[in-house]
């Protein structure tokens, strides 16, 4: 793996940055702190697939909207890189449209943050994804609650139930939507951060695997709300 920056602290996470706007890539590169090391960039679907396969980075920062390929954008990149089991994707988007978010998450992204995120928070998110955890922005948590139904009565009873959230997962999602960090969620619910991460990962799994047919339809209809 090529290391372009001479002084890289041990344990820095290698990242490939995929966005079609050069200006934005430059901005992100500058805002990321020393814990993250940008090893490659790509500006289109084809380029991204090529670069990610060549470098096999632990984390790819991926824009939802990308030119090229079959027009599938970020979701297409994730699908095309499904053979790289060690690479995780963090979706980065300026779009608020639930359609875009749900599409990229269901394709396999480990998290979703908006482009308004600041440098340290983004670096945090990258590290978190590199550690195998899921990253939920408040907005994504709101989408999840909206999609799975925020009603308290509609809760999952078993772990294998993919179409509903458990009461605890719902509680975690609500706190994240309210702007709590994982640490604050842990403090509020008197559980460990690791447990919070487990819950969030479980929600991500449900979001990705749920056969709840309303999910896609909901995402499409959300624009018309």
């Amino acid at each position, binding site marked *: 793996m090529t290391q372009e920056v001479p002084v890289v602290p041990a344990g820095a996470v290698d990242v490939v940055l995929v966005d079609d706007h050069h200006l934005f890539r430059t901005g992100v590169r500058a805002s990321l702190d020393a814990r993250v090391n940008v090893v490659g960039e790509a500006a289109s679907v084809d380029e991204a697939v090529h670069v990610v396969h060549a470098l096999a980075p632990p984390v790819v920062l991926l824009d939802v909207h990308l030119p090229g390929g079959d027009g599938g954008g970020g979701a297409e990149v994730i699908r095309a890189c499904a053979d790289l089991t060690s690479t995780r994707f963090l979706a980065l988007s300026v779009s608020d449209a639930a359609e875009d978010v749900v599409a990229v998450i269901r394709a396999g992204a480990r998290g979703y943050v908006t482009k308004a995120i600041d440098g340290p928070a983004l670096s945090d998110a990258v590290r978190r994804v590199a550690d195998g955890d899921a990253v939920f922005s408040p907005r994504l948590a709101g989408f999840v609650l909206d999609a799975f139904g925020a009603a308290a009565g509609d809760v999952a009873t078993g772990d294998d139930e993919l179409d509903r959230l458990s009461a605890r997962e719902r509680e975690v999602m609500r706190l994240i939507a309210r*702007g709590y960090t994982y640490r604050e969620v842990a403090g509020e619910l008197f559980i460990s951060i690791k447990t919070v991460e487990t819950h969030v990962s479980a929600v991500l799994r449900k979001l990705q695997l749920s056969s709840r047919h309303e999910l896609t339809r909901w995402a499409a209809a959300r624009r018309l709300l």
Partner: protein
Amino acid sequence: MDGPAGARTCDDSGVDVTAEPSLPPGAVPARTPRGALRRPERGRWCAGVASGVSAHLGLPLPAVRVGFVVLTLLGGVGVMLYGFWWLTVPAGDPWRAAADTRPSALSRVARRPAESGERASRRWPVTDIAVGLLLVAIAVLLAALRQDRLDAGWVLPMLVVLAGAALAWSQLDEVARGRLRSRAGGRTPLPVVRLLGGVVLAGVGVLLLVGQATGPGVDAATFAQSVVASLAVLAGVAVVVAPWWLRLWRALADERAARARESERADIAAHLHDSVLQTLALIRARADDPAEVARMARAQERELREWLYDDRPAPGTSLAAALRAVVAEVEDSRSGPGGEPVAVDAVVVGDRVPDEATAALLQATREALVNAVVHGRPPVSLYLEVGTDEVEVFVKDRGDGFDVDAIGADRFGVRESIMGRVRRRGGTATVTSRDGQGTEVHLSMPFAATPPVAAEPGEPVTEEER
């Protein structure tokens, strides 16, 4: 396209090219654009040819009319010209047609919606009917005068042929109208029916005429033979003409699609011009004031986002939209302790029709937001959830927090405008403040007798006061 704006629309008539005033090639169209060659609905005496020509050439209308009369006196040229243009020039508004041919990227603002007067003006074509009746009357008169020499056998076929021709020709007018309609999506097969009917009528008429000419002595076999032969010739012509016609048709469809794309682009361009470009210019002018620049950028981002991703719900039907408006107002008007603008991260789950109770809740939310922005520290988070039996709002900031119990009489804002407002409506309000974790205001408003979002808005609200 280097000619004047009207050139493209009227080359089908082939007449105006000579009549065009000599503009140097490549000249910029005149400051006052000329109308395209159309027969306007308004101000017409007969078929609108004279007013159309006057609008197209920029000549005074009376002069054009006098010209037609004078030309008519010169061996009937005026009438022939008038008839020719009546047939070949489509009806429509010359000015709008001229505007349509203009590249829409050049028109600055989005097009005005079609004037409603146009539909209203589509009244009964009184003059058309009057002219038709006049012609029929003249024909009857002529027939009556020449009664002795009139061969009744010729009249019926001629009438049939004429009816067929009229039916086929009448769609010229209809196509121009239908273009507007088909642009809106619908496509009626009426013109096709009309054309087929016209062709069949004309064919029958011609056959009758031929039968008349050859006399009653001709036998059926010969007649059928000649019919088959003429049909074969027609089919041959159709085969030869079909590719050309298809190409023409495709070119027309392509042009229509391109025009639709262009008008969409123009809409986007107009919006960007009126909003984003203005803001960018403002930002450049105020570049030395970072707080103001950030505020303008944020407001513009919000506006553009709304335009791109949202269909604006009708006012008074969406609590989420009302909340977004509150957030926008606070973001635009309030600054943090250091005068810096503060962005509010708002997340909304669910929606319902606003009522008096939620209006009070929104007011309290606004006060809480203002409090968080002005006294707290970013990031400020706002979460609204419409549950099955209550609406909950959380406003969180990262300020140093304050002791809730120590809220004195001077902090009237929190106690009265936030908590009092909600509690009077039967809701609950709590303020949690912890060291290092900022402050969170939790408001909750039950709704018992109020309808969810799908129900009819405007229903009287029965909310007991507590």
